[in-house]
């Protein structure tokens, strides 16, 4: 599905993604874990074609990608902040209708209804404005918008980081179901090891622009990582430890 070879991305003079190579098979879910400034979001934007200052080779479905891309809807993205990823003055209906109009896809009402149904929303949500929706509902709309062109690859940038735990669990379950039903490939970027472990089969740990370790989720769960930084992340994710207290 994706193959990246020595992918390097810059912001001005600083290199934020440093010679990263990886591949994701069709139907696979690949997770990238890292802390702020690790370059994980930039990497995702390079794959999406939203960041143009990059070098190296990137193949999507076997086709080499250039710097400037015409977006055909095969790659879609779900963003972190459901409050910023929907146009504040567009109804749900309009957000979902636009990709269809751009690509001259017929039967818009039918497809919109189907997309809403697929993400667990109903007709009552169709003509609402984003401010009339909760954070979780907005994220569902964002997922519906990403799916409406029937992409092969979904890029997920911290899709649950801005949500409450119970809503996060619902969105994770939704993403799991959609992948099963539609044989989608995912690239998920997150700082939350647990979320990555739930959604992905394979995980790369990213730090200062590099992949420092790649491991199967089973190994991550078992804590059998090799790199000291990965181990530190695992420890930190376990929460604050009482043993450290002097009580």
């Amino acid at each position, binding site marked *: 599905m994706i193959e990246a070879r020595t992918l390097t991305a810059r912001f001005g003079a600083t290199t934020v993604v440093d010679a990263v190579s990886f591949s994701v098979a069709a139907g696979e879910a690949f997770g990238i874990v890292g802390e702020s400034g690790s370059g994980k979001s930039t990497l995702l*934007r390079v794959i*999406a*074609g*939203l960041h143009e200052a990059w070098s190296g080779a990137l193949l999507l479905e076997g086709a080499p990608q250039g710097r400037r891309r*015409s*977006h*055909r*809807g095969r*790659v*879609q*993205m779900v*963003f*972190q*902040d459901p409050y*910023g*990823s*929907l*146009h*504040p*003055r567009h*109804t749900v*209906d*309009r957000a979902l209708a*636009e*990709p269809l109009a*751009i*690509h001259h896809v017929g039967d818009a009402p039918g497809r919109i209804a189907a997309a809403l149904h697929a993400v667990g929303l109903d*007709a*009552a*949500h169709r*003509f*609402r*404005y984003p*401010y*009339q929706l909760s954070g979780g509902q907005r994220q569902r709309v*964002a997922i519906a*918008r*990403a799916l409406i*062109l029937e992409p092969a690859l979904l890029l997920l940038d911290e899709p649950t980081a801005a949500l409450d735990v119970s809503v996060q669990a619902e969105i994770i379950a939704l993403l799991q179901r959609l992948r099963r039903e539609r044989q989608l490939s995912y690239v998920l970027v997150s700082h939350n090891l647990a979320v990555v472990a739930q959604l992905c089969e394979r995980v790369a740990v990213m730090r200062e622009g590099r992949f420092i370790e790649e491991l199967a989720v089973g190994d991550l769960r078992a804590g059998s990582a090799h790199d000291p930084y990965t181990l530190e992340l695992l420890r930190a994710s376990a929460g604050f430890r009482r043993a450290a207290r002097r009580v």
Partner: protein
Amino acid sequence: MSRAAWAGQGWRAWLGSAAPNSRRQARLGEIYRFSRALMRHPLAAAGLAIVLLLVLIAALAPLLAPHAPSAQHLADRLRGPGAQHWLGTDELGRDILSRLLFGTRITLGIVALVTAIAAPIGLAIGCMAGYAGGWVDAALMRVTDVFLALPRLILALAFVAALGPGIENAVLAIALVAWPPYARIARAETLALRRSDFIAAALLAGASPGRIVLRHIMPLCLSSVIVRVSLDMAGVILIAAGLGFLGLGAQPPAPEWGAMIAAGRKYMLDQWWVAAMPGIAIAVVSLGFNLLGDGLRDVLDPKQR
């Protein structure tokens, strides 16, 4: 409770519904919520009332005016306010009230035309510059800077002098000097918006730059431009009056307020009403637009959404 009241309530519930059933209902609901928010803002409502009153007066001027605006009665020249001429008469014995009422047409016409020309130009230039960036942005913004560097009235004066005096040319000149601030505002908003996730999502959906600017960015810049336009209206009226005052705007015998003040200047000390009445009219209308603009700023503030 009467049936009409019930029907009114049902209507209101339909408009205010959080789960509209159609595009039309969603859009009307937005307008409904917007106008309710505006009505709850007392000063904005007052401003709107003044502006609406102005429109009404302009439409009904022939019915409201007690005299023809250009009818001269030299025997009655420079009469003070009284029963026959409520606001007095000018140096040619024309009824000032009638002239003021007819003058609203000119004032409103200028305001409407300037808005119709300047706001879209400013919006388009600002959004394009902000979204395209690079040399397009640099070139457009330098042009804007040149316009902003010169005082508006002077620049408008230069344009009218070049184009020749007259109300049409005055409108054109004012529009030509009015757009740069709108371009500035639209550009600043666009710069903030273009990095947002919903623009990225539109790009991924395959939207062209034109589509993004037109459908995604412009509607969001529009509210700040509208606010700025309504706040500027007072200035536009004053520039128009200034041009009229200098004899470069509306030509006699058109009852343009600025020209009326200019004519009254000679009699300022003894027959104050000739200059004061149009002056008060300009002040009230400017105030109306300013109040409306202030209210719109509060109501349209995206942070409240």
